[in-house]
């Protein structure tokens, strides 16, 4: 059995007296789309922040393609191919959509300590950026300032940015948050197209999306993984039903 793309070993994190991540152990295989669901406050975003390096863990290890990245800072993990989107949209509002994505491509195209030559004119970077924008359906909006895009367009832009990084692992933190029905469908179709190209760890609340897209699902409650398995297994697990619907329904 080949080694997993991402392995979390007994990851733990506390804020003062509150345990936010409690002995989290998880494997994600190459090409797998793994969804994490759970009630609000379960610690899902904190988990993503630990994996991407924004938050240092208090215990445990993170192995990415076999390498221990637990001590690496966020930018180093990103340089290794770990891409993420943010729960609260985080783009460069003053730059155009194209420039946002081109900057992502630039990060993985040799050194950025070039002091001459207009970066905005680099055709190779712009071509990669345009390709990523086309994948998420934002070609028409390439020249628009990112700050002026609609909410759904910004969520798509976040994914385009991640794609331009040529990711080896994609962490998506509630990409459908705040999007309307149509935009959710578009994003879901997009994720289905991306599935298999690289492992994806998806945090989502929309159950239809989760159960139709995911290869495997993990349920997080109070910082610990309650159950993990195929969508069908998880849906039938009495502990999961209890967590969502209360003890009596189980």
């Amino acid at each position, binding site marked *: 059995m080949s080694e997993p793309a991402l392995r979390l070993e007994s990851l733990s994190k506390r804020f003062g007296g509150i345990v936010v991540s409690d002995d989290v152990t998880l494997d994600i295989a190459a090409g797998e789309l793994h969804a994490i669901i759970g009630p609000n406050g379960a610690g899902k975003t904190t988990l993503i922040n630990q994996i991407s390096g924004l938050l240092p863990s208090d215990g445990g290890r993170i192995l990415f393609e076999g390498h221990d990245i637990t001590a690496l*800072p966020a930018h180093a993990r990103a340089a290794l191919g770990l891409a993420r989107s*943010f729960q609260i949209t985080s783009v460069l509002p003053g*730059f155009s959509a194209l420039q946002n994505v081109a900057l992502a491509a630039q990060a993985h195209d040799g050194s950025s300590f070039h002091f001459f030559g207009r970066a905005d004119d680099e055709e190779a970077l712009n071509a990669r950026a345009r390709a990523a924008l086309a994948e998420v359906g934002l070609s028409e909006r390439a020249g628009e300032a990112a700050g002026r895009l609609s909410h759904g367009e910004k969520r798509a832009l976040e994914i385009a940015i991640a794609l331009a990084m040529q990711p080896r692992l994609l962490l998506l933190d509630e990409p459908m948050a705040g999007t309307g029905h149509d935009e959710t469908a578009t994003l879901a179709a997009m994720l289905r197209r991306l599935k298999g190209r690289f492992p994806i760890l998806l945090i989502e609340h929309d159950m239809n999306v989760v159960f139709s897209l995911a290869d495997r699902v993990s349920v997080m409650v109070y910082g610990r993984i309650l159950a993990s398995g195929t969508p069908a297994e998880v849906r039938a697990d009495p502990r999961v039903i209890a967590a969502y619907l209360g003890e009596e329904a189980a």
Partner: protein
Amino acid sequence: MTDAALNAAPRRLLARRAGLWRPLALFAVLLVLPVVFGAQADYALSLIERVMIFAIAALGLDLIVGFGGLVSFGQAAFIGLGAYAAGILAFHGFGDTLLALPAALALSALFAAATGAICLRTKGVYFIMITLAFGQMAFFIASSLAPYGGDDGLTLRARSTILGFAPLADERVFYYVTCAGLLGIYLLCRALIGSRFGRVLRGAKENPTRMAALGYEVFRYQLVAYVIAGAIGGLAGFLLANATNFVSPAYMSWQRSGELIVMVMLGGIGTLDGAIIGAAAYILGSEYLSQLTEHWAMLFGPFLVLVVLFARGGLIGLAARLRRGAR
């Protein structure tokens, strides 16, 4: 520091052929002034030289403030370091540009690298304060250099020579050399902000977390920018020492650093042209006002307040709004 005041201008500057007319006009004026002033105009020339020298330092500051979002309250320290490098070498008989200029650049760059490594670990007002602190340290070190005049400063016997010859003794030659320096730094800064490096720096100003998530080690880029700004300040210091034939700790006081920030803001933060315009407005304005009354600060102080309250984007922003209003 992400804020409307700091964000608007950089975008406009990067549009193709943006406002090429403005720098062309500025440099045309600067080139022609000595001719306009005529023969016995040494005082007027030295005044414009001061403008150009501080414009150079202000350009370095605009680079990190306007495009990097790093508000440094210690830029004057680099002017002082450059000046003292030139002054101390001249004192010991090594007054040639070939030695003094690289020394000035090296000293300010090193100081910037060492202090920047510490300063850039902080953000916001803490960053402002720690740059101020290091500026004060440089000030006090210079004040304590008794063999080089201490508080009173050091007079240079002559301007820097170039390969043994003394062309800089001629005021007009020195003027045009300074002008060339300003042009060079201006072109350098313009190239920098459009480059890959500049794009990363500008991105880090808007959203450093996002930049780290892309794979950029923001600290390194900001440190390089900080060192470049410091070296630019050192160049200004070298020219200042030559312009006045004098170096003094006063060149590095926190009030001087404050004045540089005022110059950048007065012209328009993040416009590059604004650094030159702001330096001119500040120096010529205070010169003119001080001829009117010795209490010119009582006019200038409220003027600054009014500029902040009503002229966001400085003089360049004001001009743009007036043009739009006139259409």
